[in-house]
């Protein structure tokens, strides 16, 4: 059978492969090459070795954006997952209207980052105006603004994953625990949580990578104000690349560094999931 299928390789694989080369492999390789070059629009690229990387690491704004992003990813991870889990627990109880509530909580997830950013900019600035201040004046307003924004956006998504996980727990295990005299708190920590570990791992990594890659929301909500202090890494890279003459190579080098960080997180996730699978 393999042989028969193999003959059809051009039809089955070629379209995807060609697009994949155009849309990913070629730009990826070019991107790595350009990170070692000085250029304005590519036709004039000159090889300069590691100097772009050195400049990237010397750029205080970039280092700031790294820590800001890391902190943002961790805080958003905790906030989103705690609330999503609690909502999932509540909405799997017997209660009127759970379906409607799930619908409502999930909906913001479908709205695009740019649109979300401007919706929240209006609201947060409106609230801050009452205290005579604004988003662009303090990076921590921007930080918490972004946290609120991504929570609003992603809690529903994670909630759905948790609900699926909760519904997959066999009822008899809980019942058995109940008969053994475990109280609800014990049941949650000793039975439900361990059974939910696969879902939790998924959600944790989804929210941490989302946090690191966040761009649209950052661009529309704060655009890095004040003085680039609320810039997350992705926006810093974009601004370095397109906003500053002569810094294109540095921007590309930053992007490679960013890529390595994100892949590092991905590898860590793979390891964590594998370890869990062995345990089970």
């Amino acid at each position, binding site marked *: *059978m393999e042989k028969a299928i193999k003959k059809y390789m051009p039809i089955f694989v070629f379209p995807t492969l060609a697009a*994949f080369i155009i*849309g990913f492999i070629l730009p990826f390789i070019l991107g790595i090459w350009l990170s070692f070059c000085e250029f304005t629009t590519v036709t004039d690229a000159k090889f300069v070795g590691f100097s772009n990387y050195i400049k990237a690491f010397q750029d205080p704004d970039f280092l700031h954006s790294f820590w800001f992003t890391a902190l943002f990813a961790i805080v958003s991870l905790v906030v989103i997952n705690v609330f999503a889990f609690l909502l999932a627990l509540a909405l799997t109880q017997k209660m009127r209207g759970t379906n409607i509530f799930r619908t409502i909580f999930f*909906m913001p997830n479908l709205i*695009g980052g*740019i649109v979300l950013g401007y919706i929240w900019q209006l609201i947060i600035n*409106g609230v801050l105006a009452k205290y005579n201040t604004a988003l662009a004046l303090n990076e921590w307003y921007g930080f918490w603004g972004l946290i609120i924004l991504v929570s609003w956006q992603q809690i529903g998504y994670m909630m*759905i994953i948790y609900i699926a996980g909760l519904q997959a727990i066999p009822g008899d295990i809980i019942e058995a625990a109940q008969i053994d005299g475990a109280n609800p708190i014990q049941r949650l920590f000793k039975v439900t949580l361990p059974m939910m570990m696969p879902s939790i791992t998924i959600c944790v990594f989804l929210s941490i990578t989302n946090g690191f890659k966040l761009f649209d929301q950052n661009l529309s909500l704060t655009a890095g104000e004040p003085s680039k202090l609320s810039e997350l890494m992705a926006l810093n890279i974009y601004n370095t690349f397109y906003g500053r003459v002569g810094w294109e190579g540095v921007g590309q080098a930053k*992007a490679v560094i960013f*890529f390595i960080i994100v892949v590092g997180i991905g590898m860590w996730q793979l390891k964590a999931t594998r370890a869990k699978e062995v345990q089970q």
Partner: protein
Amino acid sequence: MKMKRTLSWVGTIVFTILGLIYIAPIIIVLINSFKNKVYINLEPFKLPSAETWTGLSNYASAINQYGFLDAVGWTVFITVGSVLVILLCTSMCAWYITRVKSTFSSAMYALCAVSMVVPFQMVMFTLSLVADRLRLNTPWGIIIIYLGFGAGLAVFMFCGFVKSIPLEIEEAAMIDGCTPLRTFFTIVGPIMKPTYISVGILETMWIWNDFLLPYLVLDINKYKTISIVVQYMKGSYGRVDMGAIMAALIMAVIPVIIFYLSCQKHIIKGVAAGAVKG
């Protein structure tokens, strides 16, 4: 028993309030979209008064001055086109690389897995360059870019599913004289329907809302998507028309809500399934 019922009612009430708070941001924007642009920043939380009310004029200016309807059209075109192409091509590819064991197949699989985590900033410039040189800077061409950049996740998810399909059915079909193409479309395709829905939903959510990729790839003189128009309204022409922005935000959200309410069940299932596989 009675206590339980009251508890459940309390829960419903609490969640009704929570739900209202949850949709409040959209309601606030909706209210502001009927106000004169000068008053929006000044008093965003007030209901329109006789003085501030402008009716539908913000909607008219978003549509007439900023070409919002064109943007909706292009966004629909790009999203639907890309998702259909992605579903067709990547499912075929995934079936092939799962069924044919070779170095090529495993290399392809590994590359797809890697491409899933690559941040867009890594390729933003070079991808727009490649797209431009190959003349893919149109809504038709961008479909190929989306197929390439979005292939990773889709191939990965389809592979996961194909692995769970028992070989026997396909073998039987092939022995009966079916070509691989017929086998794929008559046997494998229908079995994969749930995965098609999951992948389709995930890709739709991504492409519909994507900003930077179309912004850099498309010839924005001619084609703008919804996200691009909204960003343009805020930044361009030296002025910010808050009224038109509010109207545009509402018009950007409405199709999403309609889409969501009409295939809610599939979306929720798709997300849950996608997460478990991913």
